[in-house]
């Protein structure tokens, strides 16, 4: 990466969560030269489900079967919401592009049909989401028709009790049953880690032995659910083979992070970015960015004394408090890299509501960067802070992705729109260096 010091990139993306990944991917697909800084910590927490928009207005707890209908309601009610500024066509194109990239690197998703889907979670709640990994899709069909169905859990996998799920929704789904089995090869271990199981089950012998242990317990089940541990890089194959040996549809149930689907997503995104030749600095943080008329210079902290990167445009995809894009003192919220103005409630007393599950949500979750229609963050005077500085994902103000169930949609949709604007701004996109 010696040449990177002098190379002038079209786009520098700060952050490697869902938003940073989507931004880099979309930029590279448009033939823009792209460099990304940051580790993929954020994406590890993801469930594999890619939400678009599930709930609006949050205070009414209204769930939507169609995310695009939800969006038109959102656009009316919350015109400043970042997703209100991304068109339906852009969202459709962005999701298609995103899941097809994932499919190309071995993480297949079920075809997008414009509808939201109900997914059973590991604690027995039903989540509304948009793009569903193929390995989870049979569960969606089961949720809808509720035939006889078996949920399997593994002793020692502490975050998932199939019996608990059945107890929770069994009253509305009489054919749902649970069994617990020992995971082959881990009989003497008290705590199982999802990632270890996922790696182990990629071996044909282990997979067959799981199938052998489950087969006698099937009863009249018409499908079998497992916790999401069915393979890492070869999950498509594991899922397929398990269906064959059980002779039934098999589906995964998303579990508590850090989960296997999060690992898969991280690995797949990394593979996709590598395929598109995105230059990545995974061990680095951006400590400073300085701008002149046409070029931004990013300072990185990965080597002693630091190094710099030069780019014609910059995208801030640094996330919120967990990701590190925002930080909160006792008095106010600030933006970490550039100290951009942060839209926020008046005082700390107004940040959170007294009830954790208050349907209205916590006001601090709608704090963040205010932007123009191209997702360029605004400085104190209300004008873009720099003409080619953009922000994507959860750092943006006026949204509450946790309550609205729009985390991935926010990342993917704003990335798409920002990259379009970058591409327009750079006019004749060319490969630098």
């Amino acid at each position: 990466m010696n040449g990177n010091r002098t190379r002038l990139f079209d786009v520098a993306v700060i952050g490697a969560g869902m938003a940073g990944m989507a931004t880099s991917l979309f930029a590279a697909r448009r033939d823009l030269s792209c460099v990304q800084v940051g580790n993929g910590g954020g994406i590890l927490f993801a469930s594999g489900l890619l939400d678009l928009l599930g709930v609006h207005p949050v205070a009414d707890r209204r769930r939507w079967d169609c995310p695009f209908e939800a969006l038109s309601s959102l656009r009316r009610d919350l015109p400043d919401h970042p997703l209100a500024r991304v068109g339906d066509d852009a969202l459709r194109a962005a999701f298609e592009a995103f899941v097809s990239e994932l499919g190309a690197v071995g993480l297949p998703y079920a075809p997008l049909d414009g509808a939201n889907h109900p997914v059973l979670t590991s604690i027995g709640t039903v989540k509304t989401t948009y793009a569903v990994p193929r390995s989870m899709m049979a569960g969606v069909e089961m949720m809808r028709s509720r035939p006889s169905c078996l949920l399997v859990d593994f002793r020692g996998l502490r975050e998932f009790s199939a019996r608990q799920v059945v107890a929770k929704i069994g009253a509305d789904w009489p054919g749902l049953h649970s069994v617990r089995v020992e995971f082959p090869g881990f009989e003497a271990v008290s705590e199982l880690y999802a990632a270890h199981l996922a790696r182990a089950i990629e071996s044909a012998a282990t997979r067959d032995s799981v199938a052998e242990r489950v087969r006698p317990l099937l009863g009249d089940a018409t499908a079998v659910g497992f916790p999401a541990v069915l393979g890492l890089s070869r999950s498509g194959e594991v899922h397929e083979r398990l269906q064959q040996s059980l002779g039934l549809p098999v589906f995964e149930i998303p579990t508590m992070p850090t989960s296997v689907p999060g690992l898969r997503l991280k690995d797949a995104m990394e593979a996709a970015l590598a395929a598109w030749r995105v230059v990545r600095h995974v061990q680095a943080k951006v400590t400073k960015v300085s701008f002149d008329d046409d070029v931004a210079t990013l300072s990185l902290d990965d080597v002693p004394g630091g190094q710099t990167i030069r780019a014609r445009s910059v995208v801030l995809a640094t996330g919120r408090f967990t990701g590190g894009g925002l930080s909160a003192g006792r008095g106010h919220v600030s933006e970490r890299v550039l100290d951009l103005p942060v839209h926020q409630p008046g005082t700390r007393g107004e940040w959170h509501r007294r009830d954790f599950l208050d349907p209205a949500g916590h006001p601090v979750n709608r704090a963040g960067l205010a932007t123009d229609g191209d997702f360029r963050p605004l400085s104190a005077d209300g004008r873009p802070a720099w003409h080619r500085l953009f922000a994507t994902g959860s750092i943006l103000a006026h949204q509450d992705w946790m309550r609205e169930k729009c985390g991935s949609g926010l990342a993917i949709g704003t990335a798409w729109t920002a990259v379009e604007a970058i591409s327009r701004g750079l006019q004749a996109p060319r490969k630098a260096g």
Partner: protein
Amino acid sequence: METQVLIIGGGVTGTAVARDLALRGVDCILVEKDDVNAGASGRNHGLLHSGARYVAHDQDAATECRIEGDILKRVASRAIQDTGGYFVAVQGDDEKYVGDFPGFCARAGITARPVDVATARAREPAISDKAIAVYEVPDASVDPFRLSLESMAQARSLGARLMRRTRVVGFEREGREIRAAVVQDGTNGTTQRVHVSQVMNAAGAWAREVAQLAGAPIEMLYSKGTLLVTHGRLARRVINRLRPPGNADILMPGGTVSILGTTSSRVEDLRDIHPTVDEVDLILREATPMLPPLETMRIIRAYAGVRPLVGSPSGSDGRTVSRGFALFDHEADGLSNFATITGGKLTTCRLMAERAADLVCRRLGVTRPCLTASDPIPVSPECEWTEPGRAPRSWMSALHVDDPLICECEMVSGSVLDALYQALRAAGDTPTLTDIGLRSRIGKGACQGAFCAVRAVAHLYQNGDFQGSRGLDEIVDFFRERWGGQHAVLWGQQLAQAELMEALHCGLFGEELR
């Protein structure tokens, strides 16, 4: 239902009364509207006062604390950590107070040894370099949960009965006598009568409410106090500010954490007591001059309790009202078998119980003497788990092939949950995750239950302990309680932690949509 003595309130006082009466062979039932230590006893600072804090303005209180502190160190040793304490003055503090302090301590019989500032700072590096005087006193830390649970366990072993989630809602009175108390089951709302010979109202701040039900007015004030829990322990000893009692004067060691406080403000209403952002900021502002590392310390929790103060107002904040206890026999209110014990301190709960039990026994004609100052409280295994470090020790020393860790912050394993569940179950209760939380360290670490609540519920289901669809409610109730202590301290890392908790429980699981 029938009993000799009905005790109302399961705090340190009520449970100490139950222990005292049981040791004298008197049959009693303790009714508690929520759970053991649901009131001030579960929301205090945990300082076993040497008395030094009171020497300047209340020599009697100081002496009482000294004597009672010594007794509790003997009879309740497992609940107490004899950490010792420092009194520290910093530049700008009242020098006359500092000068008078050793003399006042001597008068109350409290050993206060001067320690030179450099030595004190070497032993407790959190102390400011602006310290000007340090004295060492025999302060100690007490785990009020363990104290109450062990007292109650001993009382039960001697025949006393505990009814949790049972609230006294009325009395049946005939002339000067209460014949029965009407109690209501908090889970299903049904009421029943408990026929009684004697009633002891140990309802803490609620004592006025309870006495009113019996037709006996008491004058009481309520003083709310807020406390902060730090991430990690800042000092080994109790660190007191050497100045007239004020806000945020005391830093307590509490196992793996430190507890800083308190504030004091008058409140009129006992409902909806919660720590506020202003109180949190006030505490940090006031305490930082003595303990500068607090400026950047991560705070994982805040909680607030209400001190019942008996008497009438003489100051605006309640701090100047006596913190002594009061025993009312209510004879003047026309009652012959109803009494109230309230006010006081955690440190003096045993003495309060002794006086209360003396009165009850006199009224019952029981002549056996009080044994609580001489007989140590016996070990009850199910009461061990509130101690930080206890669960990790037992987990690490056991062969835990089938004993998974459930709470990783505090290293509480499945077998601890099972033991607590079984113990509660054996007493005829329907245990909840919140009940188990009160009796263990689960959810008390940095994650404040975000991850372990999910694992704990899965574990309890899998063992067949939990059934039906209540699991989600268990998780949600547990969080609501944990969150109550979090919303005022959410900045920095703790805000990031809270965000992750919400991403998981709302973003992924959608618990708010239930």
